[in-house]
């Protein structure tokens, strides 16, 4: 068991290295640089800036300077957010993004399971149709549009919740972002639960339980729920990594202090340090989550360990 986990950790190292290398060189191949704004800088100023960020050195030595920094835990400076190092931006933004992602994960998973189970039990009756419709809307409507709609509805018209912004310690400011982020996830969970629950409810052992005269609730709780959850469990790993890395739209729309939005803006600004920093971070999150899921599988199913 421990050996399997160790092997997986060791294979993750070359993956991270390859990602850093490929990313580093692809970024430099892209036309335009961090200082190619709307205005041409005087050549002397450009020279000074490039020297300031080591950009005047040969690419290969820049690569090793960067790699050396990464091993020391230093992701270098951000060339656009100049008052912060990349490491500091990550240390400020990551806890928030993780908190947001986990909250959405818990809310979406729980709500999705309940909705899916209710829909399955009420199959082809109005609660089923209603829930399926809500789920589809949650999955189909893009994040930014849905965010705008809930802002208008709950914030502008009803005035129940703040429309956007962030206030340390204020839960009210997080309700809408978590709702928006959890909708697609909850929707997918609900569909999975509904599908597998309907299947389980049609199996022979449930029919047997019913013929024994057991009540619906008891059947659901004791016989149907557990097997119906299996496909959901396998979806939770990718679902969680999607939530942790997919918060950029929500962070942008609600002006939240997470790390997600840098992923896009840094690439557009050619902020080399920040692009690499966030990419490494995401690779790390995805690898870690996959590792945890795989180790869990190995623990559940001994066959996996020896493959």
């Amino acid at each position, binding site marked *: 068991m421990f050996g399997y986990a160790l092997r997986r950790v060791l294979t993750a190292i070359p993956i991270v290295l390859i990602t850093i290398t490929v990313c580093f060189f692809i970024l430099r191949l892209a036309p335009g640089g961090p200082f190619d704004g709307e205005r*041409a800088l005087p*050549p*002397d100023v450009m020279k000074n800036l490039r020297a300031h960020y080591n950009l005047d050195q040969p690419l290969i030595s820049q690569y090793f300077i960067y790699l050396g920094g990464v091993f020391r835990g230093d992701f270098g400076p951000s060339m656009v957010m*100049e008052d912060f190092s990349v490491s500091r931006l990550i240390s*400020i933004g990551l806890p928030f993004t993780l908190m947001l992602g986990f909250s959405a994960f818990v809310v979406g998973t729980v709500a999705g399971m309940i909705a899916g189970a209710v829909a399955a039990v009420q199959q082809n009756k109005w609660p089923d149709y209603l829930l399926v419709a809500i789920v589809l809307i949650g999955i189909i409507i893009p994040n930014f549009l849905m965010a705008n709609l809930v802002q208008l509805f709950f914030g502008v018209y009803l005035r129940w919740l703040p429309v956007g912004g962030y206030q340390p310690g204020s839960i009210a400011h997080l309700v809408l972002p978590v709702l928006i982020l959890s909708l697609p996830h909850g929707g997918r969970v609900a569909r999975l639960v509904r599908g597998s629950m309907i299947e389980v409810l049609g199996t022979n052992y449930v029919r047997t339980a019913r013929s024994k005269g057991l009540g619906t609730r008891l059947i659901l709780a004791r016989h149907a729920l557990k097997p119906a959850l299996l496909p959901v469990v396998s979806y939770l790993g990718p679902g969680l990594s999607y939530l942790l890395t997919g918060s950029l739209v929500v962070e942008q729309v609600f002006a939240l*202090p997470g790390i997600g939005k840098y992923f896009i803006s840094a690439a557009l600004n050619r902020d080399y340090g920040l692009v690499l920093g966030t990419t490494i971070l995401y690779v790390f999150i995805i690898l870690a989550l996959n590792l945890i899921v795989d180790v869990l599988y190995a623990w559940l199913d001994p066959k996996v360990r020896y493959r």
Partner: protein
Amino acid sequence: MKITQVLKAVTTAGALALMMSSAALAVTLNLGNGSEPGSLDPHKASGDWENRIIGELYEGLVAEDAQANAIAGQAESWTISDDGLVYTFKLRADANWSDGVPVTAQNWVDAFQRLFDPKTAAEYAYLQFPIKNASKINAAEITDFSQLGVKAIDDKTLEITLEASTPFFLQALTHYTGYPIRKDIIEKFGDQWTQPDNIVGNGPYKLVEWVPGSYLRGVKSDTYYGKDNLKIDEVRWDNTEDLTAALNRYRAGELDILTDFPADQYKFLQDNYPGQAHVAPFLGIYYYVLNQSKPPLDNVNIRKALSLSVLRDVIGPDVLGTGELPAYGWVPNGTANYEGTPYAPDWAEWPYDQRVEEAKKLMAEAGYTPENPLKLQLRYNTNENHQRIAVAITDMWKQIGVQVELFNAETAVHYDALRAGDFQVGRAGWLMDYSDASNTLDLLKTGTTQEGVMNWGNNYGRYSNPDFDSLMDQASKELDLVKRSDLLHQAEAKAMDEFAAIPIYWYVSKNVVSPKITGFEDNAKDINRIRWMSKSE
């Protein structure tokens, strides 16, 4: 309950009530500030969203009034030598930093030395290049910083010597590159000096919180000389990169001022929030550059045909929806020290049909007709509005025998191509750094050779005319403002008569201001300092 407990409870309740009432009395301005500030270091900042914050944390020798005119700031008075070269500033006796230390002339000596130090790599250092030896120090040609034309005569007297007389120098000093700094603070905290716990400013507000990606918060500075006149106690600058979401926040009363809004919501705002959307002329020009370093756009008649056939009157009102005014010249109306009639070509008054006929004739002379069209590539940076305009102009050019291929790229790639001269027609824009005609006209000066390489700077179209250059040169040496303005007018006419570029519209500023706010005055620089505003509940 014991009496002490009762007393405790009463005092606690009293203290709480007092805190709540004083909290209720504090007036907070919630400002939708646009993008995330990249830096609060006056030598590293580069955007108007940074200026809106930095300009409250610091104050220069010269500051801005509600109309953004230059007024006395940290300097209470100044004298200018007859040759226009030496400025002597007398600092206010009551000018203090936010940690209580008095502001001294040495703070500016330190600031300018740091600004021009090549190691600082300040992007906007060139705005203060009128100062003697500044550009040489920045290019590392002079390493002895004491040769810089900025000297502290005594604690409260500062002398600045210029390379040449520069009528817009006071204007330039209102820019954040003219702010003082605290060398000791920067040396003490290094890269961390702009963080809320460390930063020391001399402006009306001091920074107390910075949550990157979300907001910054400032409170009234107790040491600011004008603190008693400040009506706003606290400021929150919110990140409003998402304009639609920001407008929602404004509608819910969470933001008092928006510094931009989605153009397609202008009509909605006018109908539902009358008087709150402020659209005002702004010192800037939106234009197309024409690459004149290679055929076919080196032909002035083709450039003329392209310019004539652009129906500018529909761009602002119909294509954009915010009523930008059509541009035919190169210097925005309202630019300081630029009296006289604005440049207007006679064809601007012609009916559009006549302009199209003339353009067709010119194209036919050059050998192009709708059957045998001239093929051009039009590049723009990816943006909905740029796209709309490009599509409209493509259509206008089609009728005169020009077939346009549209090509869009993200900003960094777009400007990289423009600078490399790798384009035919390209979209560009210029917002003036300070209100002076030379600031836009310099864009059309012939490039300079440096280390064997031709550097065209922001003259992407590579327009080059020795007469134009000579007029600009004469103007830069002219001390008489009226004569100087006349020379600059001649230069503008020269370049525009040769269709050095296609001006399309003058920019407008787009603010949304709540009726609770008074003292927000639209101005051509779109600079609105909070010290002039007040807010009622």
